[in-house]
């Protein structure tokens, strides 16, 4: 075994350790399923819908909010048009007569400014956000409110997020990734280590902003930074896995890489800002497990990609050059169906176990969310993810090293 291969084993060891840790956590405390119970009290809730050029999806988002199983008089919806240049404001104004809806139009300043403006004007007990490209399941808010009721110390709750109507291979790939994420987020919740409060239906106690302050630009990842800041103030974040929010995901590779570069670079840049949390027992499993492993996996994934790329290119080049000089015409290698030809080294077995654990994570995520992902989606996930993910990881690492901010769109 040479040095480069040792690195691969080290990355796989860390990844496996992390997965094993999460599965032990799952076995220790299995999440309860959905119940028909209703909250004893319905607190007032404001849901902010920040929009920037969302004319195509805003109406559906609004319809999902109107369909929420929640007392109307307790729920208000604030659409904030953040200086859209398309017909978003017109779509928003079509809901003007609705008693629950209020509309704010402002000059473009970024999502965090839209959220802050609306939060300042809200007086409700709970304040949340629903991105204008996302939809809430009818009982999602109810499930989230139950979570706040269960534990009065909980200051923010995030739902399970699923991909809305995935169709093309990239969307199907992301559907599996999000389902796997449902399992991850629930385990992070059990460990009190949720590291992001995503845009689709994360709800806060309004009082939490008095402690943390308002949203910041935060390298275009204000939802991640807010979670970091809440941990910095030792405020509790929970996951209501039975609350489902659906989101539209990028349909093209270019859009996907751009979105994920923003997320990944946001993670790296926020990690620099909150570096003191790393390996700090004051921040529990967030500081001693989730953040260090997330960073290690970021670096490790890039290492494995680089290793495979260098070896792949080198061996293909050598083969081509050799073929050229050996005088062997290019031909398909002879394929023999013999067990002897299967490379049964330790890497194969470790990879199989990793694959099995990934499938188990997807299966559990599917069970938590109560909805499945198709075999076709699984096929595209295993086919594409290994090729696509390194693109945004490399792009984010490069951007972060150059201290160049990632863009929204």
């Amino acid at each position, binding site marked *: 075994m040479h040095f480069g291969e040792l690195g691969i084993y080290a990355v796989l060891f860390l990844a*496996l*350790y992390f997965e094993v840790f999460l599965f032990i956590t799952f076995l220790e405390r299995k999440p309860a399923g959905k119940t028909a119970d209703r909250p004893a009290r319905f607190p007032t809730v404001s849901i902010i819908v920040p929009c920037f050029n969302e004319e195509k999806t805003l109406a559906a988002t609004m319809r999902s909010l109107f369909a929420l199983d929640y007392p109307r008089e307790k729920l208000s919806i604030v659409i904030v048009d953040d200086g859209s240049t398309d017909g978003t404001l017109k779509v928003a104004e079509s809901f003007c007569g609705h008693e629950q809806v209020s509309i704010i139009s402002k000059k473009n300043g970024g999502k965090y400014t839209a959220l802050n403006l609306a939060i300042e004007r809200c007086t409700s007990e709970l304040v949340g956000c629903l991105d204008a490209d996302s939809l809430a399941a009818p009982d999602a808010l109810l499930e989230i409110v139950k979570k706040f009721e269960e534990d009065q110390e909980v200051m923010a709750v995030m739902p399970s997020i699923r991909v809305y109507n995935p169709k093309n291979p990239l969307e199907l790939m992301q559907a599996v990734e999000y389902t796997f994420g449902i399992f991850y987020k629930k385990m992070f919740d059990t460990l*009190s280590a949720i590291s992001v409060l995503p845009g689709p239906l994360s709800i806060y106690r309004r009082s939490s902003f008095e402690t943390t302050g308002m949203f910041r630009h935060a390298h275009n990842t204000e939802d991640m930074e807010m979670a970091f800041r809440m941990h910095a103030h030792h405020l509790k974040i929970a996951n209501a896995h039975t609350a489902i929010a659906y989101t539209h995901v990028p349909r093209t590779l270019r859009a996907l890489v751009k979105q994920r570069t923003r997320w990944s670079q946001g993670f790296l840049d926020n990690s620099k800002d909150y570096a003191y949390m790393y390996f700090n027992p004051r921040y529990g499993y967030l500081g001693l497990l989730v953040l260090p492993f997330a960073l290690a996996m970021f670096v490790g994934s890039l290492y494995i990609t680089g290793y495979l790329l260098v070896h792949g290119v080198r061996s293909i080049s050598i083969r081509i050059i050799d073929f050229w000089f050996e*005088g*062997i015409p290019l031909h398909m290698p002879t394929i023999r169906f013999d067990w002897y030809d299967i490379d049964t080294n330790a890497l*194969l077995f470790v990879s199989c*176990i990793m694959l099995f654990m990934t499938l188990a994570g997807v299966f559990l995520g599917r069970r938590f969310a109560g909805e499945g992902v198709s075999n076709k989606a699984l096929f595209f996930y295993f086919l594409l993810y290994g090729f696509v993910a390194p693109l945004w990881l490399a792009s984010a690492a490069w951007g972060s090293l150059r201290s160049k901010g990632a863009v929204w769109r």
Partner: protein
Amino acid sequence: MKYIDWKKYVLALCITVAIFVTAFFLANHFNNARIADVRATENQIAIDLLSNETQYELLSEQSCSDIAEGSVLSDALNSLVSRLSYAEENLGSKNAEVIMLKKQYSLLEIKDYLLMQKVAARCGTRPVSIIYFYSNSGSCANCSREGDVLTYLRETYPLLRVYSFDYDLDLSALKTLINIRNVRGDLPALIVNGTTYYGFKDVGEVEKLILHVEKLKVATSTSEQS
């Protein structure tokens, strides 16, 4: 400070280590199975060779057509060489088991070569064979490429017999062969039709050295059709 269950960290570590140990154990188990497979193939070849020699003696007064020129070994030896090189790659060329298997393989090759020479002398046939000397010691930069060329030729011309020998293998029969043929250490070295050639030879060059390459082609297509 938040509650941290340190035991869980240790438990996760133990399970991960156990998984890795199992993976290495399984890999080792399959490598041993490979060795056993090579040994079984070698034993089979040894029996086949003995049978061939006996058949040769029994049929000495009968027609040469009863003795197949291709003998039993070409397919078996070809399969064995790829398995042996895989074992060598995975277990290392210095592994005692691999060295032992290579010695046995080299002996079988020499025996097959001698038997074919005897058949050729008696029956007037002209088996096309190449004796190839290589080295794994690192001193032969072109050995791997020459190996590719010979593998390609062997796949292209099934009747071509390639006997490959590790020049550095400590085997008295092989040393004798090297001495008789007067092979120097300038590897790779090829013996074709009794003449020794040194240095890398590409596909075209080796094909030129083989006298009956056209005949081999005909034989190949005939054998493919049948």
